[in-house]
């Protein structure tokens, strides 16, 4: 045997493993219980990511170092600030460019069934692109044309068969915010449950749709710094120069703002609750298994105490059992969840991915689950009295 040749010192088989493997049926029940809890947790997290994936698409695809928003904004597009502040920001030392960004819902009439819904408008100055989306930046000349728009092919079908009509070469006008506009290009950004879809238009067309007052109000200012400029210094300087109502955020902060807002959505809380439920189910199952294991072997544990095993050594056995159960139960759990994720992806059309971070998070939850259950179950161990053995 290959392993026999390794110069590793041979070690005793852990008692925990002997106990667990001796009762196959109980082990099987324990492992399926843990997998079940894992699947519950993974599904909640999967639903959650299916629902919220894409909420940070737009802030994430902005191309800038520092972002100006109204201090009271809870998410991108929530509140506005006066456009003139952008010019003041441009004058702050270290700021290379300061560009406008509008992000606003607009009414939208589905050309196929004449039903009014809404869409989200991204408006930029075509001479000052602010998005890291090549398809948009390649079509800035099209954006510039009067009453024309780029349409997000990943928008929900309830907006109408816009992409199909465009690729078929039909040039039907669509009513956006009461004005007839035409699609002259497409891009792919992605929608989510809270946003049906996006169009990209020029700031001039934005003014035509919403009027001068609104065109004077920006949803964000996208700033790029000069090479070598210190972002902290520039942000501090911006905060000092600009009025109190404006805050300067880094790109990460902007994305976090968005995430934090959506995390407070009731739906998100429901999924968090579901995750906790899965965790509790897991704790109860592992506890049940460990408790009956300790209880059934109480006289054996008392014997071990009588022949000189300390309480600590026996506690360790139970914690080892918990760890073994957690590790072994996690594997079928994550495998089943991967399968269910792909089913979920197919059903919703939203990519539900098993992210490494989520996998690790659930794995550590499973370990905590085991240790917690063990911590409750070992209280029973104290009742193993060596004096009862004689």
């Amino acid at each position, binding site marked *: 045997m290959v392993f026999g040749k390794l110069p590793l010192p041979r070690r*005793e088989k852990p*008692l925990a493993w002997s106990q667990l493997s001796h009762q196959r049926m109980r082990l099987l029940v324990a492992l399926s219980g843990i997998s079940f809890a894992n699947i519950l947790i993974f599904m909640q997290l999967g639903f959650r990511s299916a629902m919220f994936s894409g909420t940070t698409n737009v802030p994430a695809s902005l191309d800038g170092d520092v972002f100006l928003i109204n201090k009271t904004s809870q998410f991108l597009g929530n509140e506005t600030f006066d456009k003139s502040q952008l010019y003041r920001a441009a004058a702050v030392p270290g700021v290379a460019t300061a560009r406008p960004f509008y992000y606003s819902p607009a009414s939208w009439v589905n050309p196929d069934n004449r039903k009014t819904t809404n869409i989200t408008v991204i408006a930029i100055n075509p001479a000052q692109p602010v998005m890291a989306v090549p398809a948009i930046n390649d079509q800035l000349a099209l954006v510039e044309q009067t009453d024309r728009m780029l349409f997000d092919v990943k928008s929900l079908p309830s907006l109408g068969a816009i992409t199909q009509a465009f690729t078929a070469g039909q040039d039907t006008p669509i009513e956006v915010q009461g004005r007839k506009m035409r699609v002259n290009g497409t891009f792919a950004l992605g929608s989510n449950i809270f946003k049906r879809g996006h169009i990209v238009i020029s700031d001039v067309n934005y003014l035509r749709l919403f009027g001068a007052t609104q065109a004077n109000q920006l949803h964000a200012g996208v700033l790029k710094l000069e090479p070598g400029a210190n972002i902290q210094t520039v942000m501090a300087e911006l905060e000092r120069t600009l009025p109190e109502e404006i805050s300067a955020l880094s790109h990460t902060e902007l994305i976090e703002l968005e995430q934090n807002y959506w995390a407070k959505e009731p739906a998100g809380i429901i999924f968090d609750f579901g995750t906790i439920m899965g965790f509790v189910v897991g704790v109860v199952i592992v506890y049940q298994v460990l408790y009956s294991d300790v209880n059934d072997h109480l006289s054996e544990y008392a014997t071990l105490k009588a022949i000189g095993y300390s309480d600590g050594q026996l506690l360790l056995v139970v914690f080892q059992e918990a760890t073994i159960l957690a590790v072994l139960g996690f594997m079928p759990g994550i495998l089943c969840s991967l399968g269910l994720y792909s089913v979920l992806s197919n059903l919703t059309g939203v990519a539900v991915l098993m992210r490494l971070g989520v996998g690790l998070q659930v794995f550590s939850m499973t370990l905590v689950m085991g240790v917690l259950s063990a911590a409750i179950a070992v209280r029973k161990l104290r009742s193993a009295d*060596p004096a009862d053995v*004689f």
Partner: protein
Amino acid sequence: MEPVVNIEGLHHAFGKGSLAKPVLIDINLAIQPGEIVILTGPSGSGKTTLLSLMGGLRSAQQGSLRILGQELTGAGKKQLVELRSRIGYIFQAHNLLDCLTAQENVRMALRLQPGLSYDDRTTAATAMLDAVGLGHRVNYRPDNLSGGQKQRVAIARALVTQPKLILADEPTAALDSQSGREVVQLMQRLAQEQNCTILLVTHDNRILDIAHRIIHMEDGRLVRTESPTAAVV
């Protein structure tokens, strides 16, 4: 030489306050190294209680109780646990771990001995199982052993660490007279080889002859000491 067991004025009671029920009353007993002592007496007279106190399985309350040089009255939990690993116990029920093979059960006692390698433990465990006549059953689990075989594994577990003191509480009670006799003779032989002291509680008259001394207990007191020849008659 210091006695292996030295008990002076030991009292023990179960329950507290006015409900306290004395079970051991003024016990005085010294057992010398290499002695085999049998303790007999009616049911409820306190034999098991005395044994469990001597083994550090219960805390001693009053009097002096010196085992293998360690005073147990007032000893801490750590000292009791340490003492337990130096004593060989044989219980009335075999108390083997069901999930472990004969050899693994014997190893459980060896695992507590410092300075033994894995291979040392294998050698010692197999040799001891050989000595109790179970060399061909080392990989059997208790479920697949007979009552006598289980008790012999338990003896191997108690003796494998070469303890200086063995406490046995009715080790033959679950066995027929033939295998009961074999088990006791085995203990006697191994004890002589390892020069250890044995205190054995039994109701079984047929095994009294292996003892150097027989002590009778009644109502919590040691009432009489006899030599085996006198007792057998």
